[in-house]
């Protein structure tokens, strides 16, 4: 009973400390509003709003038609460009795709001389190069068929294909990105806040002081974890309601309460990780540097920013050990696919297992670091 009271009290102390750091609160606010809204509102996933320039040396009706065929949302309106600028704009990355229609294109086409349209692709734009080239190819093929009076060919195809996306019919990139941003910010906050709070106590000598009080390492740790959990879960909930649902208008299909529960579980795992890192570092500057190679891979390689399946097998295994991988997968499943516990239990179990493991290791190290 006393133990619970201690944990409660120490946690409240953490909350009071947090309230007094106005700059920190400002960052917290930014993380759950601007940092969610901005990427989601201006989101670009895959071939979306791709920049195209059009070098038209033919100036015919067909070339104009081709230029106009590239439409939003996949493409920006094609910008006219002089031929001698082609290399320059590609070098500078100003345009990802530059299309070149040679002189006499239309005449050659009509004369059956099979002229070529050149599509230059900046292949360093990894997310768009390959797919975008495919789109342009199919669009141009259709236009050329239409022009040469074979418009009915398309309708005479032996079979048609309709693609439908479940859970996010229009493949709105922003929906997913908004949730991923929340996941990312939770990761940063959980690890950094607990880790630095612990080191701060050590640097200010308050940790020494705690140790002459009738407190155990477990109580000190749990107090830090619950207080951080409370703050972050609350911020997450507000952010989902106000920013994601309200301002961005994302229809979240799944159960918010299940998601918040999972968030709390994730926080348990990631704050334990933060404490573990803090026991490895001897000062706050060390911690800051140690946190980077842990946090940034969690942001980039958990399946939220780049597909998990395309990583080498060994790295996929490594990332299975990161709580963030399971959290990303749980977030997508719960929020977009409306999956319940009966569906997501394997990830849930993995997250809980990793959390407990981290907690146990952190506790052992924390005890040891206190004793020395």
């Amino acid at each position, binding site marked *: 009973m006393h133990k619970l009271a201690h944990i409660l009290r120490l946690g409240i102390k953490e909350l009071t400390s947090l309230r007094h750091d106005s700059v920190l609160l400002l960052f917290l606010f930014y993380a759950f509003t601007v940092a969610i809204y901005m*990427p989601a509102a201006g989101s670009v996933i895959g071939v979306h709003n791709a920049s195209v320039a059009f070098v038209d040396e033919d100036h015919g009706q067909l070339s104009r038609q081709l230029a106009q065929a590239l439409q939003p949302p996949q493409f920006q309106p094609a910008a006219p460009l002089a031929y001698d600028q082609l290399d320059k704009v590609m070098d500078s*990355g100003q345009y990802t795709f530059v299309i070149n229609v040679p002189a006499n294109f239309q005449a050659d086409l009509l004369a059956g001389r099979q002229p070529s349209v050149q599509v*230059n692709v900046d292949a360093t734009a990894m997310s768009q190069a390959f797919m975008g080239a495919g789109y342009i190819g199919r669009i141009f093929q259709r236009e050329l068929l239409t022009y040469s009076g074979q418009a009915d060919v398309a309708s005479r195809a032996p079979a048609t294909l309709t693609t439908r996306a479940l859970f996010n019919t229009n493949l709105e990139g922003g929906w*997913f990105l908004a949730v991923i941003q929340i996941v990312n910010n939770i990761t940063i906050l959980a690890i950094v806040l607990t880790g630095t709070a612990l080191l701060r106590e050590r640097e*200010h000598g308050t940790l020494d002081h705690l*140790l002459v009080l009738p407190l155990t390492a477990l109580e000190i740790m749990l107090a830090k974890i619950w207080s951080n959990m409370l703050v972050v879960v609350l911020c997450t909930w507000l952010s989902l309601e106000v920013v994601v649902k309200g301002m961005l208008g994302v229809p979240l299909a799944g159960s918010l309460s299940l998601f918040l529960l999972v968030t709390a579980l994730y926080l348990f795992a990631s704050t334990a990780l933060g404490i573990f890192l803090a026991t490895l570092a001897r000062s706050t500057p060390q911690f800051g540097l140690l946190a980077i190679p842990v946090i940034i891979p969690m942001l980039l*390689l958990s399946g939220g*920013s780049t597909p998990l399946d395309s990583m080498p097998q060994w790295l996929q295994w490594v990332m299975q050990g990161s709580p963030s991988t399971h959290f990303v997968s749980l977030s997508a499943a719960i929020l977009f696919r409306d999956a319940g516990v009966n569906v997501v239990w394997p990830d849930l179990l993995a997250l809980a297992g990793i959390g407990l493991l981290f907690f146990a290791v952190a506790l052992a190290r924390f005890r040891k670091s206190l004793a020395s």
Partner: protein
Amino acid sequence: MNGLALHATGINHRYGKQQALIDIAFSLPAGTRCGLIGPDGAGKSSLLGLIAGVKKLQAGDLQVLGGSIEDRRHRNSLYPLIAFMPQGLGGNLYPELSIRENIRFFATLFGLSKADCDQRMHNLLLATDLARFADRPAGKLSGGMKQKLGLCCALIHDPDLLILDEPTTGVDPLSRRRFWELVESVRSERPQLTLLVATAYMEEAEQFEHCLMLDRGKLIADGLSHELAAITPSGKLDDAFTHFQGDSAHDNQPLVIPPRENGNSDIAIEAHDLTLRFGDFIAVNKVSFAIGRGEIFGFLGSNGCGKTTTMKVLTGLMPASEGSAMLLGNPVNAKDLATRKRVGFMSQSFSLYGELSVRQNLVLHAQLFDLPKADSGPRIDELIQRFDLSHIADQPSGKLPLGLRQRLSLAVAVLHRPEVLILDEPTSGVDPAARDDFWRLLVELSREQGVTIFLSTHFMNEAQRCDRISLMHAGKVLACDTPDALQQQFHGDTLEAAFVTCLEQAQGAPETATPNETVSAASAPPISKRGFSLARLLAVASREGKELLRDKVRMAFALLGAIFMMVIFGYGISLDVEKLAFAVYDQDQTPQSRAYLEAFRSSRYFAEQPPITDSAELHRRLQRSEIKLALEIPPGFGRDLYAGRQPAVAAWLDGGMPFRAETSRNYVEAVHQANLQQLAELNSTPLSRPAAAKLETRFRYNQDVVSVNAIGPGVMALILAFIPAMLTALGIVREKELGSITNFYATPLTRLEFLLGKQAPYLAVSLINLALLVAMNRWLFGVPFKGSGVTLAFGGLLYVLATTSMGLLISAFTRTQIAAILGTMIITSLPTIQFSGLIVPRSSLEGAAALMGMLFPAGYFLDVAVGTFTKALDLRQLWPQCLALFGFFLGFTGLSLVMLKKQEA
């Protein structure tokens, strides 16, 4: 210069609602010595800070050495003329640096030549008895030794005004004596030197001819010490102080200590041959003593002799190397929570929660010690009353003056009515009246409640009050007896004399500076360069560099972290989608449908899972993310195909992860398209005439569309945003949090020197990182390098200049290290990961996202890195990006200059 050193009129100063100084007016002739006395929280430190130019004057007029302190030009010319030693145990020192290096750093800031510096340092170290420890890091010194080092740092240049804020707090009597001898010898060299000292020792204040008395922000008396003292019959300054105070806030009854009854012979604390080693150094050497229950046992000794360490062993904070320690009949055990509840401990440095108020700290501890609710409220009120904390009960404790913080620590230590109190210099920095109050409480606890009290002190009148005292030196107990017996043993007129004799015997002949040997060097006084000074910049850079080099772990994290991230991102970030898990829901099951599906099955982009049998299963398996794509063939597909009825195949995608879904759709459409020809043949109807025009697609710069060729150089931009910014982000805020920022306020160091000096070592580390990353891209990942290496190096230099200065800006803006780390992470991650062009080309960003990408340096360096690696570019094409990066450096540094204040608010 025989005018006035100081002239103040109408000075007012407030912190928020709290009025710290009210209408202060006084003047002080040059060349005088002046003591500043007053209770804790009277405003002494605020006044000294204003005079030193460290705090910004809010209201009133203050002339220092012939000019207004508000005039920036005058203030600049004052820095070399003022030496300021702030309050606190060495908060302005650099813990990683040795004593020698600390002093040398200050010497360079004040423009001393190396020879001058060495000469002075030699004398100062001898005079303060620190020469033996010259190479020990300041962080490993005891509290009193830090004070002495602080004084050495203040005296390294020739000031006209020496401002010392409680310089001898926590300094042992022998060192204190030498300390004042040292100050006197400086004064004899510089007769124009004005000395202004805040002190809690009345006997020190009595030595000075001038005296200022402050009480609750008001100057209550100002004049010659002997005249002020003569007002009361005792002729003592502290009585005079009470007189001027008007009301008798403290009843000045002399403290009477009833004799200890010898009825109780239990032993409460016992140490037997206690030894503690740190490596070769023996901090505590076979210390033995036994303290009876209810006894007040004093621990005296020179600074750094092992008093604190012994106390920490007794509380279980440090394990003993040898010997045994018993507390209340049990061996000391760190895990014994029950014993902890019976002990109260107060450490030398303030270790309560600064952000909590006085009352909140007490309430927190009452709960942690499980005091019953009914009892804790009255108990806390009683202590707040007793320690005279009621007027500040709701203020954050961290901002309080030292003396008030000490009182709070004491209140916390006795809060839970412990049976044993272990107090490490509990009264250091506490004013005399409050000290007496505190002793009344101790006596009451000891005599009436039988509480055992073990304390260390440097005040001889306190030592006199102990039942027994033990003299410690260099880890050993020299003598242990009642104060009177010790005084006789060492033939001293006073206990202090006895103590000094004892220490001198133990140390051998005193190694002080001989009278002929003067402290100040004979050479011309150093001329501190005004405006920008490269020497000062280099001093800051070399100090920061030394700290970094000594912190091997930090260096390793900075370098290995970059290598680690390059490896996993180089392999891990790939936007290719392969082996997409798909399943078919073939409702037709004819040769035609199988032929159509075969194209998907044989593609490397798709990996087939067991087939689907009904539409509910299709939905369920997509929901479970077992499959990312389901192909649904309608019934009668083969028949309709032959009949030319255009059967419709449906592809179901998991839209939960849009990027993957879109890629999948692209693949499915491509395979379907290729399939059409085959289907047409099955159908034996020609699909179309030969294509009228050809489409030539040229993938430029990266013909094979290999992810790493584009991602690898891009990842450099990512890593070189995070690590350099994190390196510098703590640079300034750490000094703010730990206190050494005062040196920036109090020395001629300019803002630009400070910023650039801090940046230099981290810039060097970041350049090593850059070289490592380029090498890894080239040779580990085999990314072909086609462009100009010089351009990449130049662009890289500009980029790390920009990112390190961004870190400094965050550091100048934030108040705590937590905020700085979090801010760096949060501010850097979004524009670097999402808007730099690493994953999505910047040319397809619009609106706020595009703006954010433009306002952050990462995208520009990404252009440089990708451009030089894959596009064979050089400075002719990349100069706008380089210019932009340089612009960021200028902009960030400019903003830091604005954010960084040369005076405390």
